[in-house]
């Protein structure tokens, strides 16, 4: 699965984009976050304030309880500050 990070989430993880293998027991967005936190200290630090992080699956905003389904890309970022 393709994973993208933006703004301070990107800076903390240290990469813009990565491709990961999703283990079979990872069903929801929340499961995916738990899995990403296990990948490295940087990932764990990036997701420390988990409530402050928004998620998009295939470029659509979703909540953490949503199933990954057959989404090809997940993106993690802070609340938006455009406009």
């Amino acid at each position: 699965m393709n994973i993208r990070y933006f703004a301070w989430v990107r800076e903390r993880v240290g990469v813009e984009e990565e491709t990961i293998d999703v283990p079979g027991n990872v069903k929801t967005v929340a499961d995916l976050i738990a899995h990403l936190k296990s990948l490295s200290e940087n990932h764990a630090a990036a997701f420390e304030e988990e409530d402050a992080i928004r998620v998009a699956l295939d470029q659509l905003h979703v909540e953490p309880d949503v199933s990954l389904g057959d989404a090809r890309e997940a993106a993690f970022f802070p609340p938006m500050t455009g406009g």
Partner: protein
Amino acid sequence: MTVTPLVRVQAEDFDAGQEAQELTRNRKDVGALVSFVGLCRDEAGTLSALELEHYPGMAEAELTRIANQAIDRWPLTGLTVVHRFGKIPPGENIVLVIAASAHRRAAFEAADFLMDFLKTRAPFWKKEHLVSGEESTWVEAKSGDDDDAARWVNT
């Protein structure tokens, strides 16, 4: 006839007056045009630039979704949304929304709605670069922006 919004995400500046003219050219059904321009502000003189990061693809898609919600909700004759990314110095344009309609109330409300939802839903993030050279910091989302967006629920 269904209105198709014009949505652009670009590094270059935009010309708000020219974009407005595009919505009225050779038409006689537009009675009201409401334009919103958001600019990079720096009253304190401490900012060298705002840097706007965005999620390419999703930025355009989400702006188009918000624009289509406005088109479903108000009787518009046209709608334009332009959002810049990259480094933007104080005094320069960041975002443009133009709503055209037969009537002024629809044009005002649609432009206002667009800005409220764009602020809370379009995937853009602002980083402040300071004149002093101190470490750049990410702008924090304002809870007031969520309140503004919530105004449009059940109204």
